[in-house]
């Protein structure tokens, strides 16, 4: 199986503090993995580092057989890596459709028909966006904004989709909707890294999971195994159970 992404000994820090300590993992094409763990564990730091927002202190990241070396985020998008950031980072006074078109900014020379096809695929995946296509992003609900962020990321037809806490601040019903979309993308063969606090939910989508705590991987394995590990369930997967209570 060819590896799409290989991360070895990645260490990232802010000033004197180390946020991630020699993290290593790899990801095959078509695989969907998740990083779970409490707030401040270094999950967002990992994605920001892979995206090029932060530079690592040491370690290597190899994408499609080539080492990534300090490229800016926009250059990584060109290589096929996209991030749906936790804070969504939308443009408040641009419309939904503007966001989607800008998501494909690097492919702007593509024919009108090709763009329309991709746009149509996104609207089919996220039908709410079609209804709201003319609405300004700043006036959308949290769930709709999350959908815009996902749709915008997909517009560049990425090789690797990274999602940072897509359930943040959303009502359970909306979270479910977002995760259904993610699950559908996975079943269609999208390669992805999902970062979540809501472990049960994350492990229901991903095939493999890594549990990280204060910058270190403390457990890793197939999603099914992680879900059955009583010790992990008690320590890290409680969030999922709480969530279930709220949902009922």
């Amino acid at each position: 199986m060819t590896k799409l992404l290989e991360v070895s000994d990645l260490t990232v820090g802010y000033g004197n503090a180390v946020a991630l300590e020699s993290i290593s993992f790899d990801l095959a094409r078509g695989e969907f993995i998740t990083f779970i763990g409490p707030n401040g564990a270094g999950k967002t730091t990992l994605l920001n580092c892979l995206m090029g927002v932060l530079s690592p202190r040491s370690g290597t990241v190899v994408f499609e057989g080539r080492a990534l070396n300090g490229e800016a985020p926009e250059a990584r998008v060109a290589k096929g890596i996209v991030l749906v950031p936790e804070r969504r980072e939308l443009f408040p006074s641009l419309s939904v459709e503007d966001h989607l078109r800008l998501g494909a900014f690097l492919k702007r020379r593509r024919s009108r028909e090709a763009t329309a096809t991709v746009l149509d695929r996104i609207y089919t995946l996220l039908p709410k966006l079609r209804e709201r296509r003319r609405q300004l992003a700043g006036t959308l609900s949290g769930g709709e904004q999350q959908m815009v962020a996902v749709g915008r990321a997909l517009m560049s037809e990425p090789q690797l989709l990274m999602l940072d806490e897509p359930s943040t601040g959303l009502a359970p019903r909306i979270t479910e909707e977002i995760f259904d979309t993610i699950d559908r993308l996975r079943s269609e063969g999208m390669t992805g890294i999902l970062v979540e606090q809501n472990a049960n939910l994350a492990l229901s989508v991903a095939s493999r999971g890594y549990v990280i705590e204060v910058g270190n991987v403390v457990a890793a394995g197939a999603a099914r195994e992680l879900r059955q590990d009583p010790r992990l369930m008690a320590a890290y997967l409680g969030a999922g159970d709480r969530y279930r209570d709220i949902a009922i």
Partner: protein
Amino acid sequence: MDTALFLLVDGLTNGLVYALLALSLVLTFTVTRVVNIAQGEYVMLGALTLADLLQGRFPGSVYLLVGGLALCVVLDARRWRSDWKGALLFAAGMLLAAVGAVALAKGALALQLPVVAMMLVALLLVAPIGVLIYRFTVHPIPDASTIVFVIISVGVSMSVQGLGLLIWGASPYPVDPVASGGTLLGPVFVPYQSFVILVVALASMGGLYLFSEYTLVGKALQASAMNRLGAQFCGIPVAKAGGLAFLLAAAFSAISGMLLAPLITANYEMGFMVGLKGFVGGAMGGLIDYPFALLGVMMVGGLETTSAYLASAYRDVLVFGLLIPTLLWRNARQRAEAR
């Protein structure tokens, strides 16, 4: 009554000239977070380049342009080791641009083009200087704080003014208006130049509006202004977006200078004052709001002509005094919004 009407027309004309400048300031600030004190220098460069072209002299701004292009090649020197092909291509491109600029200036002089065409040539020579200055001052430190950029832009303003003095000397240059004469509009005599200013200013603003709203690159520029990180996540090269903002801002300011020059005669230090007046207007919109910035410059234009008529010695004092109530008002508004 007639006096009031005359002042109104005059104030509006001035306001429109400053409007182009305020537009430049808002555009630059929103996309790059640079409060560009040096924005007025493009006004000077535009005006003096046009004066040169119209009076048959080789435009001095070409020296600045060629020098800047050469400096770009020097700054790119480190690339020769790792990627000599790319570096060679870049150097060749810069050389081609320099030759192109000289040829354009010489050609325009030889053909003795009409005023409007000369304005276009001057625009092509001055606007790229904006990109060069962006390359030298902002591009190397994209994450610097606003105050650092302010200090840098003051330095740029001083340097460009110094270079202007070196190239053009201290003497003022008269510039012919696009159209001389005027017409009686009711009781008021309106010079044709005022109509030209109106048309050009509206066309420039309309052009910027259409570009921002109806092209993907324009939307990308807006996106970079609204959320830099979000724009990067879309694959928008934000550094290039900043360069584009500087290019457009330099173009608008140069146009402003070419329209203004016939009214006040051009000289090497005209830019700073005009730049500050554009800033006073732009401050009304907090340097981020185009409509309020336009309202602001119209007030500046109106106040300037009125005070020139009633108390000419205090003209600039009154205009800059406008900044104080403006800032107080913005502060109060912001507090009200925060609540």
